[in-house]
């Protein structure tokens, strides 16, 4: 990631949850579903936002809000779809914004002062002109992995 000489910059899709702006490498995003209908799953682990219909499959979507311990969103949320070897999964975010070009030169690792749960979820941040863009890596958000580390 920090090897600026080889790949100085790449495209990230910016998403917003609460006040914070997050960036997800666009190459990892299979599809963006705009405010799809969702189905809650009673008794599911806390980080599961619900089920979403994606191309004939019913996929499990993780809620970033729930992961971060935030209040549920009052409005319908957008869903990013990621691919894993076990099949696709979704990520609920408040809204999906524009695609940005970010440079690895602007990337910083997680600060040591960051709370431990967020330490595990975030992959550092890019320093934008006026704010920070928190880096999210889809593999850290896979439901199975979350189930192992958070257990609800």
């Amino acid at each position: 990631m920090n090897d600026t000489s080889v790949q100085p910059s790449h495209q990230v899709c910016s998403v917003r949850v609460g006040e914070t702006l997050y960036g997800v490498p666009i190459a990892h995003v299979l599809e963006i579903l705009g405010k799809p209908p969702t189905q809650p799953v009673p008794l599911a682990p806390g980080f599961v936002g619900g089920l979403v219909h994606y191309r004939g499959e019913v996929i499990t979507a993780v809620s970033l809000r729930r992961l971060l311990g935030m209040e549920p969103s009052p409005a319908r949320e957008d869903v990013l779809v990621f691919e894993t070897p076990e099949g696709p999964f979704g990520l609920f975010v408040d809204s999906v914004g524009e695609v940005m070009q970010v440079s690895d030169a602007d990337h910083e690792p997680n600060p040591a002062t960051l709370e431990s749960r967020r330490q595990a979820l975030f992959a550092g941040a890019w320093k934008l002109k006026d704010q920070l863009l928190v880096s999210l890596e889809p593999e850290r958000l896979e439901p199975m992995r979350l189930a192992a580390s958070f257990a609800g």
Partner: protein
Amino acid sequence: MDDLTREFLLESQEGLDRMERCLTDLETRPGDTELLAEIFRSVHTIKGTTGFLGFGRLEVLSHAGENLLGLLRDGSLAVSPEIISGLLALMDSLRSILRAIEATGAEGERCSEDGEMIARLEVLQNQGSTFTQAEIPAAVAVAHSAAPRKARTPRQRSAPRNAPRPLAPRSRKVSPPPAGPEPRAAGEAGPHGGTGAVSPPLQSVRQQASLSAEEIAPVALRPTVDRTRQAPAEAPSMPSGGTADSTLRVDVELLNRMMNLVGELVLTRNQILQATSADAGFALLGRRLDMVTADLRESVMRARMQPVSHVFSRFPRLVRDLARGLDKRVQLELEGQETELDKSLLEAIRDPLTHAIRNAVDHGIESPEQRIAAGKPAEGLLRLRACHEGSHVIVEVHDDGAGMNIERIRDKAVERQLVSPARAEQMGEREILQLIFLPGFSTASAVTSVSGRGVGMDVVRTNVEKIGGKVEIDSRAGQGTVLRLRIPLTLAIIPALIVRSRGQNFAVPQSSLTELVHLSAGEADGRIERLESAALYRLRGRLLPLIFLDRLLEQPARERSRACDIAVLNADGRRFGLVVDGLADPEEIVVKPLAAVLRAIGYYAGATILGNGEMALILNPGAIAQNAGVGLTGDADENLADETRNAQQDFLLVEADGRRAALPLETVLRIERIPRSRIEWAGARPVLRFEGALLPLDDRAGQAAGDDPDAQATVVVCRDGKRQVGMSVAHVLDVAGGRQLEEAGSGAVAEGITLLQEHVTGIVSLAAIPSLDGVSGHASSEFPAEAR
């Protein structure tokens, strides 16, 4: 493991399966040279392929078998039971080595066993010459005309197929005529095999494969080469070769994917049908889409089907071995082998069926002495039959043995405390038979090596119910036993009832649903009783444990005294009522798998998308019952009680004319909702045109409805003897069991009334509805039916 080895394993296993079938057939038809030729080919192919793959153990063993089979084929040795046993044992050895290769990639070293096997086969070879000279040359003569021809067709197919197939999925450039070396194909194989080293064996496979064809049937070599060109032209004139040319192997994954897409199409269709139901033009298109989708779904489902012979084929061997081990004589008859079933379901019934057959041979069929003493032929008959019945496949295991000993089952069940002695006394034969499905029940007085170890029919039932099937048993003392498995055709699309709980949809598979009970807001509190923390409902006098879906799923609490529905479920023999907020229509749903994190919750069998586009979680009634601790035995008892309310009859409870009335349920054909304007008058008698015929009507609800032309009527169509009659009612209330009422003192059974839900209710006399005989003349012409 490289592709080549994997392919080899697959082919060899198929070859051995075929061989096993043929061997057991051979025992009944020892003179059948075609069978011998086929067995010889199977062994020969294995031997041929193993040599250069470096599986020495397999090669030596199959060589020994080939020698023996060669003698049999040539007619210089006659088939005997010992030889068959020897060859079957050889197959087991080959199989175990194949398994070892599959697991470890190597054959393993157990040369002493191999040595014994080879020695056994050699002894068999030398002992020979028991046949009559006259018989064999005749058989050989047949062989010369028949065997090469038969030999040619399958070999033509398998020889070229064997070789290039490992490559086929990835490199499509492999040209079909396989005789010459093909460096390009070999080169392409390199990357997949890991190194280029794969290519030499690959060519060897080809050569070897075509070589073996040459050895068996020299005449056939040339056709092998230009087979592909000839095949289409040959197909019509050669029915025996036709099947192979018109079939091809398809990856199960691909079929699963297709099934998914079809499921998706079904959903889209449902949505389109719902969205366009108002528009007449669209409705037509929608119906067409509906038909095409149904056809497509059917076709794809058919593609996943396999004939039950895949499972049946192993039973001749099993029965033979069992019978020999038990000193019994059993003839196995297979029927309906071509009946097809979804591949995954076929796998699922393999074990239950095996168990049932073991049972039949072990416990069902008697020893030859006993049979003769009972006046039956010494040889027992075991019939395995498969057939279609609607959307189910029925598989029957039928033996003509001693039948079940009802008294012994009764005693055993009481002894094991599965039923109370008093209850056992009241039970009829059919009920008693059902007891064998209870866990922990086994009647084997002596534990044999075959069965009778306490795990028995309950496992069969559990396994069959797991796939949405049912098991029934029927037995007659002295005549035999029939075990009937009823298996759904497919798993991927299931009929389900959609229930609602806290505004969310859930699907309950219809297969576990037995009935529905509606409780109105007023009733909900009173009718649901509590014993400590357990909620119960009195269903026809018996207590039904209740599980509240919202509480189970920790959904927000419900307000008290709301109307609710109880879905009475029976899952794996556990019976309980699932309390939900409301019911929606039943639907055919496509089962979508859930992610592992959600599967782990345990209550969900999957998810689905409904016709209205909403999603629903599919509940797993078995898991719910188990988790909530719904017991098995007591419920089975309850089931039985349900089945045998001898003095009881089920009634459709209706309200008409402000009163409750009961219609015997077995007379009810259907319930129709029609506009009142459709009720016509023949003279003074109300009639309804129904399916092209006139239905005499008892229009009880008519008086109350008045003359509103838009009013709707609910008509219950009933069978009364040979005729059909209708009764218009205000509401259909429930289905309930009614008890006979006896007159105080005399004890005479009261006619025309019954006790339904604690109310004395009049039974509608269908015979009292006047027939149309007398009015037909007026109604048709002179007095045209007058709309009311």
